[in-house]
């Protein structure tokens, strides 16, 4: 086992998480290699260790508060199955576990309100479009100006060359 391999496994070796075989090979390398031994010691010195923990009075205080919170939660009726909207809100809220329901509900309501507004806006928009189109058509319909002499629309080449011929052609 070389230095790189050894060093990558040192922490697991110290934590006793390696197989006996691998563990023995690490021990062998560490005892023979000064630089790996130095790293091993520094890692060991930096190991966090749990202290004696909370003093008894603070532990008991915490236990009491946990028991009371559970009693209170038991006394509150189990929440009724949530509606589809609440489920949606709850689902979105679950992203932030700290504030599951209020956040989710707010998002849910906001979405419904947004949808309603969007629906209203789209109706208004459609109505406007329709009105604009009708009005546009009306302009088109009214456009042929009856007061413009029809002759004016005739191309110059269409000048009455021989109206007589036209009428007496056949």
């Amino acid at each position: 086992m070389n230095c790189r391999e050894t060093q990558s496994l040192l922490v697991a070796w110290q934590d006793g998480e390696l197989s006996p075989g691998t563990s023995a090979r690490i021990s062998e390398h560490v005892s023979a290699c000064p630089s790996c031994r130095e790293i091993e010691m520094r890692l060991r010195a930096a190991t966090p260790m749990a202290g004696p923990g909370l003093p008894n009075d603070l532990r008991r205080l915490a236990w009491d508060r946990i028991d009371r919170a559970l009693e209170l939660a038991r006394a509150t009726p189990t929440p009724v199955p949530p509606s589809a909207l609440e489920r949606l809100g709850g689902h979105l809220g679950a992203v932030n576990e700290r504030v599951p329901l209020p956040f989710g509900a707010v998002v849910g309501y906001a979405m419904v309100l947004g949808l309603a507004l969007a629906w209203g806006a789209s109706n208004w928009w459609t109505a406007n479009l329709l009105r604009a189109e009708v009005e546009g058509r009306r302009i088109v319909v009214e456009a042929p100006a009856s007061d413009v002499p029809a002759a004016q629309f005739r191309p110059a080449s269409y000048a009455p060359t021989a109206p007589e011929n036209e009428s007496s052609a056949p």
Partner: protein
Amino acid sequence: MGTESAAALSGVFTDEDEDIKRLSRTNRRAAVDAVVRRYRDRILHHAIYVLKDYQEAVDVTQEVFIKAMREPRLFDGEFRVKAWLFRVTSNLCFNIVRDRRRRTNILDAMPKVDRYMPDQIENIVGDERQVVILGAMDKLTGEHKEILSLRYYSDLSYNEIADVLGIKLGTVMSRLSRAKGRLVEVLDELGVVLDEDTVRKVLA
């Protein structure tokens, strides 16, 4: 905590969890109480080490057990109660730490590590050296801090950590190795001596 760790290593915990599951079939309420009694100190201490605030840690512990009580799968055959409890605790603590950071960003005030430390922190953590190590952990990423807490303060095995974090055993190994390497670097930057003599004294 010492006897509990010994029990964990000998696998007594798993057997007791099975007993609790059996109890739940006849008396769910008593089974929930048994889960609370069994894990309350470990969950509370895990939260204390992460949050360094007694009140907030108690709040989190309450919330964890209320969630457990309302968890329909809690006593299912395959359900791993211990990993679930630590995962929920870790998530709740992570949210609190993130909110704190956001709050201090808004106020544009530098957070002080000891602001969240009760006076008794030295009693809880152990000696002065361990207080320094705990303080140094605040300079690590959340991911590294979390895995170090789970391993060394809550005394979970690599397998249990893999369960709690939902990662592979190999990832636990490499992440812990990197986290500890970073911790050594931070302690170096803080001028904490980690030479052979000190190690001997510390481990004596």
